[in-house]
């Protein structure tokens, strides 16, 4: 495993997990695109574990942080949707170049799925398959949930503030401790994970879902036409629940299924 900075002005932080020495089977290369904000924090270790599990199946894996998030350069206020899309393409190019593999697979977790599909829709060259892991299919809906969780979270933490400052925060540009600039909010809200886009990309698709009720039925029906490999993962984290805000995503029980999905 090797962590490093790459991309324009070495502004992106990435970690490359090479295949394990004893690994056998067909060689693959997988790019993992994570989520943003509080979901980034909650799923970080699980994405690392997912990467490590894939290396045991002879897979090269790259995880990375979008510009102005995580370990990458930039302040939170500088995060930008178009830059996120570009970062996915930059990471793809790095992985292809490093591994000399023409075909790579992409795993998109939560809003990372939305970013990955939108980033690669126009340029699916070299893209072999896409795994959508608990995908966010409607940016606007995702943002509404973040706002609700933020209001509830601040309302609950008010007991630690002086009485004059107690209120549930709404209409703010900070959500659960993460700043989202207006232009980023606008871009996320207008983004959708369209099945037609996936169909046009003409790549194999797999879907890992913890809680199918969190996905719109119409979207699931449309997806069914693409005949994706689908598996239900253990529901270890409820993304829209205030009670689960302090909990980390625990992926270990679902790892074998998830790895199978990615490499299907």
């Amino acid at each position, binding site marked *: *495993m*090797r*962590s*490093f*900075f790459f991309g324009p002005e070495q502004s992106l*932080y990435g*970690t490359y997990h090479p295949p394990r020495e004893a690994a056998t089977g067909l060689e693959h290369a997988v790019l993992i695109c994570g989520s943003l904000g509080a979901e980034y*924090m909650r799923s*970080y*270790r699980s994405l*690392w574990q997912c990467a490590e599990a894939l290396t045991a199946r002879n897979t090269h894996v790259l995880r990375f942080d979008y510009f102005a*998030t*995580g*370990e990458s*350069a930039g*302040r*939170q206020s500088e995060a930008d949707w178009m830059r996120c899309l570009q970062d996915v393409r930059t990471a793809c190019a790095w992985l292809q170049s490093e591994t000399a593999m023409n075909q790579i697979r992409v795993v998109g977790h939560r809003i990372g799925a939305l970013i990955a599909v939108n980033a690669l829709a126009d340029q699916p060259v070299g893209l072999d398959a896409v795994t959508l892991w608990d995908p966010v299919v409607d940016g606007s809906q995702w943002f509404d949930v973040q706002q609700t969780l933020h209001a509830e*979270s601040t309302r*609950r*933490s008010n007991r*630690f*503030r*002086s*009485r004059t*400052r*107690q209120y549930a925060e709404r209409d703010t540009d*900070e959500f*659960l*401790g*993460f*700043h989202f600039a207006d232009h980023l909010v606008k871009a996320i809200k207008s983004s959708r994970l369209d099945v037609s886009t996936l169909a046009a990309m003409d790549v194999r698709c797999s879907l890992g879902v913890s809680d199918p009720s969190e996905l719109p039925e119409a979207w699931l029906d449309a997806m069914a036409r693409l005949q994706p490999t689908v598996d239900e993962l253990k529901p270890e984290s409820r993304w829209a*629940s*205030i*009670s689960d*805000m*302090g*909990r*980390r995503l625990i992926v270990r029980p679902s790892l074998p299924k998830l790895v199978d999905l990615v490499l299907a």
Partner: protein
Amino acid sequence: MTERAVRFGPAGALSGIYHCPEKAADLALPGVIILPAGIDQKVGPTRLYVGIARAIAAAGFPVLRFDYFGLGESHPSPVTGGGRAGSLPSDQGGDVDFALDWLSRERPQAGVVLLGLCSGAHDAHRVAARDQRIVGVCQLDGYGYRTGRYWLQYTVERLFDRRRWVNVIRRKLPRKASVEDGDPVTGDVDFFTMPAKRALAAELRAMMSRDVRLLYLFSGQTSNYYNYERQFAAAFSDVDFGQRLTEAFFPEADHTFSRSVDRRKLTARVASWLTNEFRPAS
């Protein structure tokens, strides 16, 4: 300032980021190690540690942030086996010692300041109490002990808080149950236990004799044990801190400094303390 991803510890199991000041290194300045908080990865809660590290590196201090064994991007400890799942994060696996060894090799001339939030603050003290290389400790929401003035302020605030009286009445009334209401937002885990006051006083005296500098910062979320600035010094009036103890209270901030305005204030305070305490006056 440059940032470098580093691996250290047994078999390179520990993952860290080293912030190296761009200017010619001032070898008199200590390095700073930021210790993980709870089960968060090295970016810190709400990316707090990234901002602090970049600000203090810009002030000329080299900084190392890292993940404990089995957290973030670090492998489980090859010595103890397994990860930290199910156990409380602390320095028990020797994680901090490996970081200290790494930074001391990188900068052999200067001492080290440890900074940590919550369980990280607890770890910072424990290591500082036994390791001579530590020249400073910055605790965020770390140790605190109630004093007479604390109880007075606590009582007065509650007496005049209308909401608390309303709550008392509400509790007496029959109430519709809510599934989520009352669930802890941050989980019901205690990440560290407050040490016995007398034992801590002895450790603080020993640290003062080594001229260790202390910065104790408290958020409003510590209101169950800290509610006014200088309370820590008052609780340890039998320890001669001299000018070595600095306290700051951020009553508006929550435990993880989740608002950017609070993060900015905190970061500025830490950077100015480091500069005042460790940068020789020119």
